[in-house]
């Protein structure tokens, strides 16, 4: 493979073309739109038309207007709660999977991941009908006797968004936790057993610390997906469940203020990048080769 030396001019031009193409595609369709978007956040709107003069007005408005920061903060809290719920449910399930042998382990994993591929809109709709006033959840709670009569606790409010997002995103938490649990060497667990540790001690001192990287990536996954979702809150949140994604989306619809929407997106992107970085930082397992 004597390449560079014996290259003909024609070949060299071809390889230059390939290089330009390889760089051009991602740059044109990903980087350029994002940069334009960022630049837009410094524009403003006057009487329905966009004013192409740089201003910090959108960012000032975001920080000073009494509406946006509280909604932003509430949405962050909501999405952290979604992540916590997902992990509390996903961890035991993922752990159970690793106790299974051979094909059962992967068959069950597949079973828990398949709902991911199922139509997202339909799932939201079905969950909404389950949570609704005449829905299954209310019927079950009344039947058990926890509630006297059907309650509107889970209809068109923040609770509804919390439950729906958690239900939608559990599989995203199962996979990373399962992978990190599966990577723990069996010898460590056996050694701990040999040294006289109880099952609980082994879990708390060996398994749990070594699986924390998986938990961190799961949390960051779920958080990022939850905070970027604007359809679920729109559908199950009603009037009281107002999230940041909905405000952002409305800037491109009814409110019609693209530059301000772009500024809100920048705020969203910063939170998402932080979440991804935190997930990366703690998601790197240090001791896998032990």
């Amino acid at each position: 493979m004597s390449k560079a030396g014996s290259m003909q001019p024609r070949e060299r031009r071809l390889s230059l073309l390939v290089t330009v193409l390889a760089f051009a595609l991602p740059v044109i369709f990903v980087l350029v739109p994002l940069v334009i978007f960022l630049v837009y956040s410094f524009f403003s709107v006057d009487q329905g038309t966009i004013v192409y003069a740089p201003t910090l007005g959108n960012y000032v408005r975001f920080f000073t207007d009494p509406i946006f920061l509280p909604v932003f903060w509430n949405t962050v809290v909501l999405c952290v709660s979604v992540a916590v719920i997902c992990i509390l449910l996903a961890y035991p399930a993922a752990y159970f999977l690793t106790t299974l042998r051979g094909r059962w382990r992967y068959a069950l994993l597949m079973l828990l991941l398949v709902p991911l591929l199922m139509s997202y809109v339909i799932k939201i709709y079905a969950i909404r009908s389950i949570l609704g006033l005449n829905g299954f959840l209310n019927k079950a709670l009344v039947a058990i006797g926890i509630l006297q009569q059907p309650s509107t606790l889970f209809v068109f409010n923040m609770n509804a968004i919390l439950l729906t997002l958690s239900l939608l995103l559990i599989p995203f938490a199962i996979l990373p936790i399962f992978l990190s649990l599966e990577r723990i060497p069996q010898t460590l667990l056996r050694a701990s057993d040999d040294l006289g540790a109880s099952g609980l001690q082994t879990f708390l001192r060996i398994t749990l610390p070594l699986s924390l990287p998986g938990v961190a990536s799961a949390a960051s996954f779920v958080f990022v997906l939850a905070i970027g979702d604007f359809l679920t809150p729109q559908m199950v949140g009603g009037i009281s469940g107002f999230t940041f994604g909905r405000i952002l989306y409305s800037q491109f619809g009814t409110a019609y203020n693209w530059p301000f929407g772009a500024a809100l997106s920048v705020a969203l992107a910063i939170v998402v990048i932080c979440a991804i970085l935190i997930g990366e930082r703690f998601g790197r397992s240090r001791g896998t080769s032990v």
Partner: protein
Amino acid sequence: MNALPRPSTIFLAAITTLVAVLLYSPLFVPIVSSFFTISHGDVDWSSPTLSTYRALAENHDILAALRTTLIVGLCTVVLSVVSGTLLALYYHGRRSGRSILQFIIFLPFLMPPIISGLALLIFFREIGLERSLLTVVIGHTVFVLAIVYRTVLMRLQSMSRTLVEASYDLGATGWQTFWRIILPNLSSAMVGGAILAFALSFDETMITILVTGTQSTLPVRLWAMMRLGFSPDINALVALILMFTVLLCVLAARFLIPRQMATERS
């Protein structure tokens, strides 16, 4: 992991069952109602019917949306597999500029879809491209490219270099080596990537809503219908899509899980 005593195993199994029930209940509702009539929140188990499926066959609105979705999906698959494979081939074994471009390719997948979608929306407006199926296809391709690229690149990295070297030693030209050695070795990864790309495109809702024109794909159509409530034939559609999805999953697993692991398990 036999260290745990019995009660904890039961507890774990119970939670796992709960999770499975939670995950499948939203799918269960429309499937049951595709075969049975539901009135006032109660299922009438006595009379199974296929009428919803017949109604679906006559719902031209939904069928048109389904056809649009399939067209978008196929275009996305072709575009993303071709460009993803070329990019993987190009960056494989090349250091300069790879990490930064890889980062750019992964951005639309990492960023919330609302950000990718809005960025594209503004971009299309600035370059004067009307919103249409073309913009939807571009949006989907940008979104799924990372998956195809990564799938193919991983296969390339696990491919033994000696194969390529042997081909050159035996006097094959660069093109011959590519067609006879590299491409056949990549084919299953490309098929697996294509299936994943199609599945993602088929259900993509958020980017599509932002960049679509007058023609809507199935998820967007369903989204628009949801405000008013669904007609029963939608349930039939959901049941069919679920079956189709499970089939895709099984296929994807066949192509993506390495042979060794598959034989070990069977």
